[in-house]
């Protein structure tokens, strides 16, 4: 286990190093940050002088060296727009994004397990066909379209739910203010979470169904039937338990993907999280913030993958964690 951890951490460090180089090297292609910061009638000479002051004229390796030595001390640069350390900006926006992902995950878990299991057990029922039909639609509609449709229906036509923002928040800790503790906050969470869940939900229903169907055809399930065990015991204790292994793996990886998808959801709902912030940063050519975002999201991917591998080992001890010869 210790060897495994060490190996994973080493891998993670290499991955983060590669991410830092890639994200730092694209900054020259993002555009000129000064164009976004200065008025249109500022002269070229003045722009040149500011570029010099900001160190944008230095060679790539000098800039990267300066960046990495600061990054190792936890300083990922200062955002041009927010005028604060980029990492602070991102950490301030992180709670909003994590709550969105959490809300969507809850919806996905609550719906995908029963629906997936049901459609595996009753493959020919009308309800199953409906579930499958909907899931195809869900996969094929882009998330921003789902979001706009939801806003149109529930905010404009029915006037039941708010159309944008986070609503009333309760401050809990540090920079973390949550919307989960007020009615207004929960109402504001509903539409964005449903939109975000709509991309992943069909995937999970289909995954659980496929795995469940396979499990139902295994020898040990047939044996359990022959032994005369109760059907619920067979479905949920025997079959479902074995279904969950691949689901957990995929789920872990998808959390990272979901963080990436928040870019679209957040921009439609004006959700003050880090996905929306990233899109804005790209528009403003706020390079320090863009680089810091890529590194933080990269870190989220790396961490969730590592945790998934560990959990995998706990659920199924026969998995060879170290990957070497036994």
């Amino acid at each position, binding site marked *: 286990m210790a060897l495994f951890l060490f190996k994973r951490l080493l891998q993670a460090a290499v991955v983060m190093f590669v991410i830092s180089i890639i994200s730092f090297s694209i900054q020259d*292609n*993002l*555009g*000129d940050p000064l*164009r*976004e*910061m*200065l*008025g*249109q*009638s*500022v*002269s*070229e*000479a*003045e722009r040149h002088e*500011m570029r010099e002051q900001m160190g944008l004229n230095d060679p790539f390796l000098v800039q990267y060296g300066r960046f990495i030595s600061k990054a190792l001390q936890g300083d990922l640069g*200062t955002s*041009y*727009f*927010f*005028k*604060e350390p980029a990492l602070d900006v991102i950490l301030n926006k992180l709670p909003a994004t994590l709550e969105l992902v959490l809300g969507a995950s809850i919806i996905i878990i609550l719906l995908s397990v029963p629906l997936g299991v049901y459609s595996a057990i009753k493959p020919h029922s009308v309800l199953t066909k409906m579930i499958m039909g909907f899931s195809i639609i869900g996969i094929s509609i882009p998330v921003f379209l789902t979001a*706009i449709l939801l*806003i*149109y229906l529930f*905010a*404009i036509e029915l*006037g039941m739910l*708010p*159309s*944008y*923002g986070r609503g009333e928040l309760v401050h809990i800790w540090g920079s973390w203010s949550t919307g989960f503790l007020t009615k207004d906050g929960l109402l504001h969470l509903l539409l964005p979470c449903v939109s975000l869940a709509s991309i992943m939900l069909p995937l999970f229903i289909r995954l659980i169904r496929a795995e469940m169907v396979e499990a139902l055809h295994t020898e040990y399930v047939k044996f359990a039937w022959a032994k005369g065990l109760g059907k619920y015991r067979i479905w949920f204790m025997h079959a479902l338990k074995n279904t969950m292994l691949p689901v957990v793996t995929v789920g872990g990886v998808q959390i990272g993907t979901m963080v990436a998808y928040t870019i679209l959801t957040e*921009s*439609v*709902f*004006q959700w*003050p999280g880090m996905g*929306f*912030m990233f899109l*804005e940063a*790209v*528009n*403003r*050519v706020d390079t320090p913030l863009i680089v810091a975002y890529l590194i933080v999201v990269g870190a989220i991917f790396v961490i969730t993958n590592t945790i998934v591998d560990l959990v995998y080992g706990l659920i199924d001890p026969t998995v060879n964690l170290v990957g070497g010869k036994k």
Partner: protein
Amino acid sequence: MKRGVAILAGAVLAAGLSLGAQAKTLKMAYDADPVSMDPHEQLSGGTLQYSHMVFDPLVRWTKDLGMEPRLAEKWERIDDRTVRFFLRKGVKFHSGNSMTAADVKWTWDRLLSSPDFKAIFGPFEAMNVIDDYTVDLVTKEPFPLVLNAATYIFPMDSKFYSGNDEKGEPKATLKKHGDTFASRNESGTGPFKVTARQQGVRVDFERFADYWDKQSPGNVSNIVLTPIKEGPTRVAALLSGDVDFIAPVPPTDHDRIKQNEGTELVTMPGTRIITLQMNQERVEAFKDARVRQAIVYAINNEAIASKIMRGFATPAGQQGPKGYAGYDASLQPRYDLKKAKQLMKDAGYEKGFSITMMAPNNRYVNDAKIAEAAANMLSKINIKVDLKTMPKAQYWPEFDARAADMMMIGWHSDTEDSANFTEFLTACPNKETGWGQYNSGNYCNPEVDKLVQDSASETDPAKRAAMLQQVERTLYEEAAFVPLHWQNLAWGARKNVKLEAVVNVMDFPYLGDLVVE
């Protein structure tokens, strides 16, 4: 005696109640919030909208592009080079300090150190304090646009901004994208003060109790500004009643807002011109005025304005819009395909040629679609266009490098004056003076430059207008660039928000005067 007290108490209570009944909160959504609380940090629409709420200029534009007094009660021209401003007395800053000429002078000095704003004050020599409530603005040469420049002087509270902040930095520090005291704190004389601000998320304003303008009908006590970047979301927020006022309104949603019962759409012809420039240094054929004319004749900008812009643009034949000094009503949009073909034939390019074109795809309304349409129209006179569109962040470096044969640029004059268009867009490029900085066509006509230069010291409005009209006519005849249209402006509001009265073509609504029923 007791009864007297009771009556007095009743009167106070009634006064309090009637005040309470008047208090209105306005929730509004722009596509962005001001980048800083420092009014001198960035010259942009967002900053000016903010400045008109929190600060207040010496003078300001009226709806019909006239001038009205604000912090300067009146002004008079003393001689060729001097205009004297008489400041309003009894004006308080948000901090409680009184505004005097010293504050105006302090603000002036600070403006001259701002990279964004100092260009506007280039023609000025000095601001002289005469007494506590009088200042003289002196120009280097006789200069006609003193009042235009004075609309940019928003006095700041010199006492409030002096000394050092908690980090030991001077409070007056002005730094682009720097974390300064002035970028986080304000003390202006404007109708509203900022009570809370979360950049990119929300800004809270509260009406300033000691605001000098007691005549103003404005009754908004609090404003909550939420930036909503996405057009459809902004419109949804208005339609669902989550906000009372939005700007800008995307052209595709105008009908929805008009037809919806509770909302209203206010539109106005704008002053931002959208043009295409033809680079004479990259394409030999563009040196021939007939080819440039052919291109202007081939591009149907009326169709672009009606089809692509859905009527939400005014087709243009010149740079400056109606109301500006140089506007000449006879210079109408030209579209005549037959004539275009004939001109190409005369110039010896009947068979046509190939060119490259670049345009942004997120800077101007429908920019990429407009460029596509123009490219298609050019194919009718056998000019084959290789079009590339890109986000503005990538576009501007390409524009600076003059990377394509034809490029799109939009322009709004900071001085609300015709000369500004030529200085930046059509004058001979000159690195020293900065003229022609955005002239990617490299069009150069010394006569035009001379006229514009002379107009800068012509203080007789009629003579000056004649010179600038001559400029527009020359550019028109020589087809110096392809004029497309002026973008119109649109605001959306709930019916009880009387927006019409406070909006203007500069797109900084005077929200201090806004009446909400």
